[in-house]
Structure formats: C-alpha cells, structure tokens
C-alpha cells in the first residue's frame, strides 16, 4: 500500500513539474511572439506613487486614460493592458523602503513589464537597480542626473535632466547682467545635485555665488532665517531648487520678506502656487522647465500640448496644473511607441525597440536614439511678467526680445 502511495505521489510530482516547465516556456512565447498580433496577451504597467495625494491621483488618471483608449481601440495590436498601482506614502511622504517592497512585488507577483517608480529621484535611485535586474522597462519621472548615471539599460527618463537645463540658466543670468546670485535649495537628491551643478556652471560663467542656504523642509515653516541671510547678501538674483509644489511657499516668503528681484526656480510653478503667491508678486519669476501650468486650456498655444490637455479634460473634467501630467503623458507615449515598434509586450523586446524611437512629446521631440536613455535635451524657460498676469507666462526667448515698454523689468531688490 505504501509503495502504491509513493508511486502515485511521484507521478503527481512529475506531472506538476511538467506543468510548471511548460507554463514557463509558454510565458515567454506569450509575451514576445513578435508577429504583430498581441490579442489575448497582457501588458502590465506597474505604478509606485503616493496614491492618496494629487500626484498619485494624476499619475493614475493619465495611465488609465491611455489604457482605456488602448484597450477600446486595440491600439497595441490588441494586447490587453492593465495597471497595477501601489501606494508608497508613509505619514505624508513617499517612502523608499515601501517603494522597494512595491517594486519587488510588481516584479515577482504581478510580472509587470513596465514599472513607473514615480517622480522622486531618490526613490528611482533606490529601485532602479531592481527594475534593471528584473528586466522590466523602468520609466523614471525624476529630474536628477544621478540615477541615470548608473548605466541601467532598462531604465528611461521622460522628463528633462536638470543638467541639460543649467547652461541656459547661467547664460540668461549673464545676459541680464545678474552677476551675484544666491541659491536656496532643499535637502533632496534632485535639489542637491541641481545646486552643485548650478554653482559649478555659475563659477565657470564668471558669476559669483554670494549666498547659499538650505531650506529645512517643504512645509515652509522656519525658513525666515535662511531668507533673511540670502536677502542680506544683496544678490542680483536668487535661484531656488526645491520639491515640486514647494516653490509657492518659498517665493511667497521671499516676496513677503521684501525681495523684489528676479527669482529663478528649478521647476514648474503651478497655477495653484501662482494663486498662493499673488498675481503681482509672481512677476519676475523665471521657471526653468519645459512645461507650463495652464489654468485654462485656451491659454496654451502649443497645438500638441493643447490636444493632450483637451483629451484629459474630456475624460476627467478638469485641466491638470501639475507638471506630472506632462511627464506621465510622455511615459505613456513611450510605452505605446515601444510596443508598436517591438510588436511585442515583452520587456526585452520593448527595451531593444526603444533605442530606435523618435516621436513627438509634450516638451518637444522625444529622441531615444542617442543611446543615453534620455529623450529631451533642449532647455526651456518661462517668465512671469506683467504680460502674463492672469494667464500663462511668456517664453523666455520671447521675453528677452520683447519691447522694453511692454515688460516688467526687475533687476534688483528695492
């Protein structure tokens, strides 16, 4: 009897083993047959973000907009696309440890072929290696150069690397004869590298860094000392690098403390922040960012961006003001083009295909053919001036050539 049980158990084990082996082999074939018909196949997009706040909500909305469209129209050769989103918010802040666990789960349990680890560079730095080793296509929305310097083959960026923005910033300062600059920065990976790069570029371009102060946190409390120190150093201009969403508080406090000069900020100033600062006091703020936050879609004069905003508005009934919208939109364009070029939803096939891609994105042409896994290389900046109050800011190049009588010129604090 015992022998019979042992024999049956062995047979069962063998059958189970065969099933496992055959299903493993099938999976590869299922994802990557490369014949252009992907019906019945699934593309899983993994998202790690702060799902409870505006950022995570916006990330999900943009991804779901694309997924609904793809699945309805069969855009990706009939492949079924699904989103698996995990929250990494811990006590009001995105947490690295939680993000690592989320990415591990996305790789091991959900078998996500595409993973988007959000917009914080320190988190992308922490999970990028996992994504790369797991051979999933990773798309980071952060701006720091550091994580892209790791040489991860599978990790891409659909935003503008801060380092590519810097030469135009110092060139603008020089052209406006702003020789003495002060820097305010936050203690994050992105801001620290931005601070170091702008300092190095400023010195190289013959500018003087007269003060640099660290902002304690994003809440805005307790930064009066830093602001007083910066203003008392009598700078020609101030450069601020901080987390997205924190600029409003810093600019507001600079203006409240009596600073009237120009302020360069390292990212977008959202319309909600403009409201917070006040229309008049936002004048003289230069946003070093390829994007603009629009209160109304009509304010946008770029047809491509306008159509993206309109599509989003038609689905969700509001105009997104956060630059995360543009970065995630571009990430989805990358996924779409990668699948169409690879004719496969296998991550390895997509990775190979991405190096041949060049297409239009929200900040210009997204060119992945240069082999750096970056796509944007051109800097853009926008100025809030008397012309822009109540509407969109003016492009820096237009502002520089504008008739003096039409623009608010702010050269020095009062």
């Amino acid at each position, binding site marked *: 009897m015992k022998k019979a049980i042992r024999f049956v158990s062995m047979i069962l084990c063998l059958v189970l083993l065969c099933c496992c082996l055959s299903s493993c082999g099938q999976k590869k074939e299922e994802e990557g047959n490369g014949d252009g018909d992907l019906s019945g196949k699934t593309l899983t997009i993994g998202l790690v973000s702060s799902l409870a706040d*505006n950022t995570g909500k916006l990330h999900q909305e943009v991804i779901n907009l694309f997924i609904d469209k793809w699945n309805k129209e069969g855009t990706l050769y009939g492949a079924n696309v699904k989103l698996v989103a995990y929250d990494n918010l811990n006590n*009001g802040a995105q947490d690295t440890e939680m993000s690592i666990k989320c990415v591990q789960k996305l790789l091991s349990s959900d078998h996500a072929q595409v993973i988007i680890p959000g917009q914080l560079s320190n988190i992308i730095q922490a999970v990028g290696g996992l994504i790369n080793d797991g051979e999933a296509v990773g798309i980071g929305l952060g701006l720091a150069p550091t994580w892209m310097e790791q040489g991860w083959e599978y990790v891409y960026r659909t935003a503008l690397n801060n380092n590519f923005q810097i030469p135009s910033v110092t060139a603008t300062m020089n052209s406006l004869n702003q020789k003495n600059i002060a820097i305010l920065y936050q203690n994050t990976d992105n801001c620290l590298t931005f601070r170091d790069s702008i300092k190095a570029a400023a010195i190289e371009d013959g500018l003087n860094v007269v003060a640099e102060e660290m902002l304690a946190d994003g*809440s805005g*409390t*307790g930064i009066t*000392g830093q602001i007083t120190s910066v203003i008392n150093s009598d700078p020609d201009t101030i450069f601020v690098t901080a987390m997205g969403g924190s600029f*409003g508080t810093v600019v507001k406090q600079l203006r409240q403390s009596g600073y009237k000069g120009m302020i360069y900020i390292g990212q977008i100033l*959202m319309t*909600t922040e403009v409201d*917070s600062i006040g229309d008049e006091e936002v004048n003289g703020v230069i946003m070093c960012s390829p994007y603009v936050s629009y209160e109304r879609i009509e304010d946008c004069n770029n047809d491509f961006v306008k159509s993206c905003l309109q599509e989003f508005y038609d689905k969700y009934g509001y105009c997104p003001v956060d630059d995360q919208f543009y970065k995630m939109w571009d990430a989805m364009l990358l996924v779409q083009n990668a699948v169409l070029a690879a004719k496969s939803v296998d991550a390895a096939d997509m990775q190979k295909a991405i190096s041949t891609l060049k297409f239009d994105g929200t900040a210009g042409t997204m060119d992945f053919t240069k082999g750096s896994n970056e796509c944007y290389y051109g800097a853009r900046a926008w100025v809030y001036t008397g012309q822009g109050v109540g509407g969109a800011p003016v492009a820096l190049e237009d502002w520089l050539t504008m008739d003096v009588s039409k623009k608010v010129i702010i050269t020095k604090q009062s």
Partner: protein
Amino acid sequence: MNDTLKLILQLMIPGLCLGCVYGLNGIGAALLYKGSHTINNAQGAVVGFGALLGYSLQNRGLGLISSTIIATIACFFVGVLLQVGVISQIEKKAPIYVVIATLALSIVITNANYLIVGSYTYDSAVILINVSKYLHIDSVNVDILWSNIVAIAVSFIAMVSVHFFLNKTKFGSAMRAAAMDPFAAESCGISVVKTRAVTWGIMSALGALGGCLTGPLFGVSAGIGIAAGAKGNTGAVLGGYGNMYGAIIGGMIIGIVETIFGYIYSPYQTAFTNALFLIFILLLPHGIMNEKAIEEG
C-alpha cells in the same frame, strides 16, 4: 548699529511668531500631560485640519477672522470627540496605548487631509492693516509683516484666555483639580471624563488657531501642522513638561533659536536646534519652570 537692530527685528519677529504657534501647541501638550500623563501625537494633524477648515471657510466667502473663529471652535469639538470616542476607550485598557493610538490617529487624519485637499499649498487671506501688508519702521528701515504681528498678538490673547479660564473659572479649577489628583477630584463630584474631554478640546482648538494664523504667512497645506505639532511638544518639554507657562516660553525659544540657526548655518538648522534641546534637558531635566509633573507620574 541700525543694521544690527534691523537684523534682530528681521529674525526675532518671525521667530517669535513661529514660537507663539509652537507655544499654542505646547500649551495643549502641557495640559494633557499634567492631566493624564500621556502625549498626543495627533496634534500636528489636527493643526493641519484646522488650517484647511479655516481656508475652506474663506473660500466660501467668510473673512479671515470669522473663518479662524469657526475653525477654532469646530476643532474644539473635534478634540472632545476624539477624546470621548477613541482615547477614553483606549485609556481604560492601558494608558500607554494612547500614545500609539494618537500616532495612528495622526496618520489617519493627515492622510485624510491629503485625500481631501491634495498635496498643494493654497493661498490664505492676507492680513492688511490700513491697506498695507507691512508695518514700516522708519528708524531702522525695516518692513514687518502685519501677519506676523497679528499672529503674535492673537497667540498672546489666546494664552492669557487659557490662563484665566484655568485660574478664574469654576470649570478651570475643576480641570486643575482633576489633573492634580483624579481620584480625589472624582470623589468631590468633579467629572474627570468631562475635564479630560475639555482638555483635548482646548488642545485641538489652540492647534487649529495656530494653523489658521500661519496660513497667511506660509499658505495652507495638508502637512502644515506636522512640524508645528512636534515642535510644540519639544517646546513643552523645554519649558518643563506639564507646565503651561513653560510650554509657552519653550515654544518661543524653539521658534527664535530655529530662525537664528537658519540664518547662521542653514544645513544644520534642525540638528542644532535639537542638539540644543538635548543639552538643555540634560542640564535642566525639569525644564525652565522646574516642573515636577514627570516625577509625580
């Protein structure tokens, strides 16, 4: 000389303003510790909630003053509800659970704040006196924000009101008696449950007031109270944990020292402030007011 005076004013007034907000939070922490030998980790979240409530009332057409008053009163009842609905139930089982429970409440309220209003910073009404945002002092050529001055003045009024409430009213005396010896107070007919609920109410109301006062200065966001709540506690320990007046002084010291360190060497602003706090506590374990509530516990 004028430059030095100007710098002192530039740093001291905003520092004092921050310190007053910390002090408001510290008063609640001190009252709570004195009364029930526990701490409230959810104070910062309630500050955020109060500030957001004040902001949303402003959005509905109310002025800064009326929205602040309504938000403060509403948060008084939020505090009472928290105590009656959650804390008093947990307290019966084990007092230490209250610390953990308030930590959980903090996360729940903060996340709810984020869920409702998101992570943006919103504009609060600006305080104008005679249509000017600033008080200009000619002799030293310095502009001081009215918002700072008003925040300091209102905080002082609130602190004095709490002082009179505790010392000159029957219920205040009952609260002090219940804090000193709950069993004896109970046997004298004082409802300790009621006094503790009011303590929580006062703590939440003062926090909300602080949140509304900082709105015109920094804007309003879901996370606005997190730092203020924690620093209020730190200030309360510095002043002598359990002593209301010590909490006010401690809060002000933290606010001013933090601002000065921010000016001197910003990368270590928080580290220096906390190191100073540690040194202070090592040398003066009962705080500035030599409060013995900790030993009594």
